[in-house]
Each structure stands twice: as C-alpha cells, then as structure tokens.
C-alpha cells in the first residue's frame, strides 16, 4: 500500500468535514473491495475515513410497510437478523451467500451499494424491491441510483446512510456463482407485491437491470411456462473467462425459473 492518513469520525457531519478538508480522501466501510485495491497499489488516497464508529449507520428497523437497514450493517448482521429473516427472508438469504464468512464479517451493504460492482448481489435486491437509498444529502430512488459499471448517482463526498426496502409478499434470490470468486455470474431477484412482479438481474450486464417482459408475463400467469420464450439478447451482456454472454443469457432464464419455482 501507499501511505495514507487514517481518520475515524464518530458522526456523519464530522466524516463529511474531514472529507472536504483532505486532498483526495476515500471513505472505508468494510474494506472488502478497497483494501485489496490498496494492496495492489491500484489506488492512492491521501486519507482513509473509517465509517465504522458512526453508530447511527448500524441500525435495523422494521415497520409495517418497510425495513430500513443502516449502511454499515455487515452481511453477517443482515443474514442473521431475526427481524429481516422474518420480514424479508430473501434479503437475509442473499446476504448469507456473499463471499465467505470472513468477507461477511466485514463487508457492508452500504459499501456494496455505493460501489455498484456489476457482479455484486445487493443491487438486484434493491432494484427488485424498489428500494430507496438515503444519503447524507438526499433520498435517491433505486431507478435513478445505479448508472453504469461501478458508477452510481452519488456525488463526491456523499455518504450512503441507510436503505429502505418496501415489504413485499414474497421474494426469492437465485445466484449462479463464479467458481473462483463466488461473485454473481447471474443473480436473479424476484419479488411479488400486490400482483406486481419485479425481476432484477445482476452479474449479467454492466449494471443491474430489470426484465420488463418477464415481469408482465409473470404478473398475468406466475409460471415458468409463461416466460419460457423470453430471451435476453446476449449482445449487451458481459463476457469473461468463466462465462460467455450466451451462457449468461441462458443462465438468466435458468435462475429466474428457479426463483419462480421457489415461490410457487
């Protein structure tokens, strides 16, 4: 790693003021993406601002209509929270499939969402559940949040503080993991609320996306049969060592089908 200064604020306002006073600071949440980047000398922040002492970022709140999860909640916390397992088990199930136990101890939902890795799992949950992202400045609808490859609507210095998920009737997350890294090659998050189905796919494209055609068919008839002829064109899908874009296109159908079967 290159040298950096380390700061540990105890409030959002303190964090923001430190950020604006530094040359080129980075916030650090769980560090599961940032630390490997620093070790490989691919980034050179002047300062690291550790958000882990800001207690208001770690709470989980369940209300009648929605669940609000603090940005600094770890994947382990989310996967083991009784509140979430009761109100939104697909989310805790998703969290339990991220990385491995060591990564889940440290990695956070806020960090993952702010990073917008095309292979991360949470973006599929946020998009399918129509989540709202709360930051130190404003509230952002999920449809406006994920812009592109590792790109979000966040401004310089803006901190994700919490994420709220409307409670739905049923939801399921099915993931085909990269055999080396465990990241999503294709992850399908399907949610159902008031006969409205939302299907969000991560891993397959440069950012998370919905398949509106599948949503329409499933709303009319919730079965794998009704979507069997829908193919997501592989033209704009990712291709790498482990999976071609054709394979990903095929896996989208497989994973959505498995989610449908789980909820039938």
């Amino acid at each position: 790693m290159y040298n950096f200064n380390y700061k540990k604020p105890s409030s959002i306002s303190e964090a923001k003021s430190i950020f604006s006073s530094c040359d080129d600071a980075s916030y650090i949440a769980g560090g599961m993406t940032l630390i490997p980047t620093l070790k490989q000398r691919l980034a050179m922040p002047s300062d690291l601002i550790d958000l882990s002492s800001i207690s208001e970022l770690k709470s989980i709140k369940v209300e009648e209509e929605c669940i609000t999860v603090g940005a600094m909640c770890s994947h382990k916390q989310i996967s083991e929270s009784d509140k979430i397992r009761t109100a939104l088990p697909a989310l805790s199930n998703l969290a339990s499939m991220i990385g491995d136990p060591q990564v889940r101890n440290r990695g956070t939902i806020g960090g993952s969402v702010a990073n917008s890795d095309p292979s991360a799992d949470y973006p599929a949950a946020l998009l399918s559940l129509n989540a709202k992202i709360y930051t130190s400045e404003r509230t952002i609808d999920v449809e406006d949040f994920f812009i592109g490859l590792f790109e979000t609507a966040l401004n310089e210095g803006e901190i994700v503080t919490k994420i709220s998920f409307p409670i739905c009737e049923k939801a399921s997350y099915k993931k085909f993991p990269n055999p080396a890294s465990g990241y999503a090659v294709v992850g399908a998050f399907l949610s159902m609320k008031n006969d409205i189905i939302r299907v969000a796919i991560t891993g397959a494209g440069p950012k998370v996306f919905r398949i509106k055609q599948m949503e329409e068919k499933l709303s009319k008839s919730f079965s794998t049969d009704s979507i069997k002829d829908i193919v997501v064109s592989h033209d704009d899908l990712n291709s790498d060592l482990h999976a071609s874009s054709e394979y990903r296109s095929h896996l989208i159908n497989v994973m959505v089908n498995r989610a449908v079967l789980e909820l039938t």
Partner: protein
Amino acid sequence: MGKFGMGQPIRRVEDERFLKGFGEYTDDIKLSDQTYLVVHRSPYAHAKIKSIDLSYAKETDGVLGVFVNKDLEEEGFLCIPHDVVPNGIDGNEVMVPKRPILAQDKVRYVGEPIAIIVAKTLNIARDASELIEVDFEELTPFPNMNTEISSNSEPIFKEIKNNELVHWSMGNKDETDKIFSKARKIISINLINNRIAPTALEPRAVISEYDDLNDSYTLRTGSQGSHKLREWITGKNGKKAADIKPDKLRVICPDVGGGFGMKNFLFNETLLTLFASKAIGKPVKWKADRTESFLNDTHGRDQINFAELALSEDGKFEALRVSSKGNVGAYVSQFGAMIPTMAGCGMLCGCYKIKSAYVDVKVIITNTTPLDAYRGAGRPESAYIIERLVDKAADELKIDRAEIRKLNFIEPEEFPFETALGMKYDSGEYKKILSLATKRANWNTFAERRVESEKRGMLRGIGMSYYIEACGGGPTEFKTIAIKIDGSVIISSGSQNNGQGHETAFAQIAADTLGIEMDKIEVIMGDTEKIEAGIGTGGSRALAAGGSATLSTCQKLINKGKSVAATLLQSSEDKIIFENGFYKIMDTGSTVSLLDVAKATYDKKTFSEDIEEGLETSSEQVMNAQTFPNGCHICEIEIDPETGVISFINYIIEDDIGRILNPLMLEGQILGGAGQGIGQALYEEAIYDNNGQLVNGSFMDYIMPRADNLPSFNFNYTEVSSPSNKLGVKGAGEAGTIGATPAVANAVINALNSINAKPIDMPMTPIKIWKSIKEARKS
C-alpha cells in the same frame, strides 16, 4: 504390534504447532538489521531491452542498492543452471540456452526479473521499483506451443530453431509401426493436459546473510531439500549458479507450507538475495506476494498429446503409440525438460500387457513462466493418456470398461514384469483391487441409477481409472541417529518435510524399532550444517528411501550398543538379544535399557573411544529399485444440463500402497493428492492470452477447489508388500493425483456420451459441459 508399529494411526506431531500458528516459516523469521528486496519484473512476454534507467530508483531515500545482471556477473553470480535434459532422437546432446538470473538484453516471459532494489523497508523498495524506467522494443510473443513462427518473427532464442528445445523418443518405433500397420482395430485420441499453477499455501520467501569474516553465506528458504539446493548453486555435473564453494554456503530450511514439486527448484530470487546480502553487507529478505507466486513459481503439466492404441477385435491391446508436445516455458528449469519426457513416459503402458510401444515428445520453449515438476511430475500425464485411451477403446468396441482393463492386466504370477517401455514392475494384484473397487462402487448396477437421474432431467456418469506409478526411488538417502545424555533421540534426516508428516513418520519407525516413546524422539531436517547429506523430498520417496534409511540406521545403532550392553551385563555379545527397548541376556533374563546403554557411552573412563557418544550412527540407504503403487479410482457424478454444473455422488479409491506405516497420514496424502487431481480435471488452468499475459493470476479467477468442490472420499487399501525396500512400503505422495484426474474425466465423458455429446478437454468446466450438451441437443 507395538503401539508405534507399522499400521498404527499415530497423530502427527507437527500438527500442534502448525494448527496453532506456531510454525516458523521463512517469512516469520526476522533477522536483526534485515533489509528488503523487491524485483522489478517484465510486463511483456517477449521484448528487447533497449535501455534501463535506474537513476530515480537509486536516488530514493532509504534505497541501499539497485542492481542489474551485469552487477551480478561481476560478482560471480552467473546463471540458473538446468539439471537433467534428455538427448534428442538423433542421440545428440541438447544445446540448452543460458538462463540469466536477471534479464540480459531480452525478456522472455511476463514476470521475468529485470532489476532488483534493496531498501530499508519493503514499501520503500516497492516505491523505488516503480521509478525504474525500462525502454522495451516489443517482439511477437509465442505464448502457446502451436504458434507458427514466420520468417520475420524473432524466435525466443536465436540458437533454438522453431522454439523446439529437443525432439525425444522412447520405445521401439519399427516394431510398433509394424503392429499398427496390421492392426484390426486402432483407437486414437487427441488430448490436452492443462497447465497448472502450483498454489502452495505458503508463497516462496528467502533470507540471505553474508559473513565477510569467513566469506560465507547463510541461506534460509523453504525447499524440498537444502543439500540439493546447495548443489545446484555451488556446482553439480559441471554446472553451477554462482562462484561459491559448498563449504561456504549453509542452507537452512524452516517450516514449509506446501511444496508439490515446485519448491524443489532454484529460483532467481534465491540467488538475488545471496548476491545482495554481500553487496549490501546486511541480511536481505525477499518474499513473494500471491501475484508473484502465480507469475513466477514453476507451473506444471501443459502438454498436447495424440495417442493411438492398436488392438484385436476382442479388445486385447497390442501396441501403443503416443506423440506429444510438452511446454518447458521461457527457460529450462532444473527438471523442466525431463518432466514431459524421461520422468513419466516410461509409465505410458500403465498396468497393461502391451507388446510394443513408442512415444515421441517435442519439448517446446514458449514465452510463459518456466515449468517443472508438479505433483506426479510426468506420471499423471501418462496415466491420463492411457486411461482415457482405454476408456475410448472400450466404448468403441462396446466392451465394459472394467472388463477391458481386466482382460489386459498383468497377472500376479507374471511379476517381475518388464513393460514395452522398459519399466520393471515388481508386484501387483490389479484384478483383485479393481474388483474390490467396482464392488464398492456398485459399478454393475449403474445403468439403473442413470435411468433414475434422467427421470429428474439430470445426466449421470461413472468413470474409472486404474493407475500405476513409479516412485520412491534413489539414488540414496541418509540418516544419522544419536541418543542424547538426557535420553532423547535425535534423528537427523536428509529428507525435507513440506507438510507430509516426515517428523511423525521417521519418529514412528524409530520408536517402534528402538522401543522408545515417540515423544522422546525428535527429527531434525533442513540444515546443511547439522545434517551431513540428503537427497531431499520428491517423487514420493521419503518413506521408501528415508523410512528405510531410518530403519537401517536404528538397526545399526542397536548392534553398536550390543558391545556396551555386554559390558554392563557382564556377558558376551552372543548371549544378548534386543527386545522392546531392552538388551536382554536370554538365559538369565537380566536386562539393561537402550537408554542406559547410550548414557553409558558418555562415560569415557569406562568405554573406549571406539564407541560414539550416544551410539551415534549414520547410514546411507541405497535404493536400487523404485516402488510401484497402484490402484483404482471410481467416480460417479450427476450433471445438471441446465447449467453444466457437476455434483459428486460417490468417489471410491482402492489402493495398493504396499505396507502401511501410518494409515492416518496415508489417507491424508491420498485424499490431498486426489483433491489436486480433481482440481486439474474440473477447475484449474493457468491461462495465457495471445500476448503472453497470464489472465487469471489471482484467486478471483484461478479456480482453486475448496472443500465443497470435492467429494467425500471412500478410501480403502490392500497391503501388497514392495520387495524393493526393507519396510515393504510404496510411495503415497502423488498416487492420489495420478489416479484422480483420469477417473473424473472419464466420468464426465461417460455422462456426455449418454446423449452423444462431444467430448471436451480439461478443465471440464460448467460452460464447456453446457456447450457440448447444447450442441448435442440441437442435432
């Protein structure tokens, strides 16, 4: 049988410190005043070096020295020598190009060391490395063995035409060709043996120190034999790396976290730290990060094979013909040219009676990391060829795959048996062991289980391999045993533990033979100053060679003690026997313990100078013959055609590993080996792109099998004693790897065959499987 006897499942003594984090690996060692070395490496696979600007690096605060190859050669650090290279078909010796320690004029693989920086801290050295400017002229790279070399491309070495180091052969070409020309049936197959990165848990590290008073060096590094390493550095068979006399180089091997063949070899960084320690006048440490490990540890395997079997219509094998290309990488590592040729090709006939065989191999130089021995070192490649070929023959002739093997096996009464490729197998009960395996695997009722899988929309496959391997050979191994005055026993061993459990194995043999508790016995290894000589670990030889040497030395020690016992018991030597740790007068029953006898030798008033203190005894065990472990792996899998993902249903291993010293450790070696074999079959491959860049040099993309990627193993063994050594043991270190790869591959091919899907190459990943199934379903 005593509690430490052959067959006792003694828990490993070294595990306590390894599992609790108290192992001392090279990087754990901090010498006072130690400095840090970083290597500046090539980003290109093939390029000329036009100039190097070291000035900014040299000016950096805290940098103690920056060096290039010229500086090394001026100080007598000359090159990295090769060891064994086979002669060509024409009988001529091969011209092996020089391998400089730092790149000279040209770089030939991504990661090749170009310059070194030594600094007070690792970070300063890394910062300075980024300030080195190298001006390159890129050349067309040759990253794989099939690249055409056009007349205007520069070859990797001017003196090596077509990048072909040597064209070697073995066997009887004329007789083999004759049999093929008359054969009723010929089965042929094209195979790829995929390139593997060794991925030891502990990356390589070295610390060197120079003593200017004595003009001598101390080198600490994890290896598979300190003496072997010293020999390559100071001089062997007229080749050496540096102008250092052997008695001026002490080599110490601390704990090693996995060797797998790779840690045998002499790497650039070892010599670079030696040079730097004298140039700087302080201890110098280098350690690899994981990326450097992927790029610079010697890789394994990487062959392309075309194999043919000539047989009768009823399935009797008559002749075998194999033509291969083996990759040696950009430079010839110590055994790199031997692995695809002499090291394993002799085993191509497997366990079968084949009248005639011929193999030819072209060893190719490529712009990739040098390759060398990797668990099995040539024998897995041969087993893969013959076992895939036999399966294909069975399928085409519509003979059961177990039956065709039994039809062609060498029978027990036919041993010793010399194969068509000159190997002299000493013992074996192949039919019996294969039958045990098929019974345990419910081989004969597989068809019913397949029907059941197909009802659920799944494919099912079962595959077997019957492997044999040659290991545990010579030339010799050394042991010294002494009993200290406090009654503890020290075994100085020339073998080197990399995690196999030698400390336990040798102590167990000594405890059983000497009749002394194991916790009183210590095995020391790895220090050339404390241990006179050693051949080291590799080729699954430690138990056969090192264990036999331990047994011989113990017996010699006991004999030595008889004269002292006779004096103490006031009897004559011929009336004394040794039993369970005691010398006993047969008539009277009077005894004296071995430990008391040893203690007495320290009393120089009573005992003459002729008896060594502590009964210290050394012996050198000559190994005249290899051992031939063999066995049957049967793997049953299910494939989800929607994704191509494989699930293991059953995995049976029935082995003949000779007499078994410690069944716990045996199982560990076999299953660990099988894990690596399965890794090659299904998951692992070091992939280079057309520019010679290693595209998956990290665990994000190199598929390392984890526990949940492997089956639960059902492992059993039959003891067929080896006549080649006193213990009757056969080597177990590599057997699992050799048997597993073809068994798993054959299971996948069997599943694909059930829907007439085309066969695929290793690693048999989900996407490859899915594509093959998709194509089959279209047509």
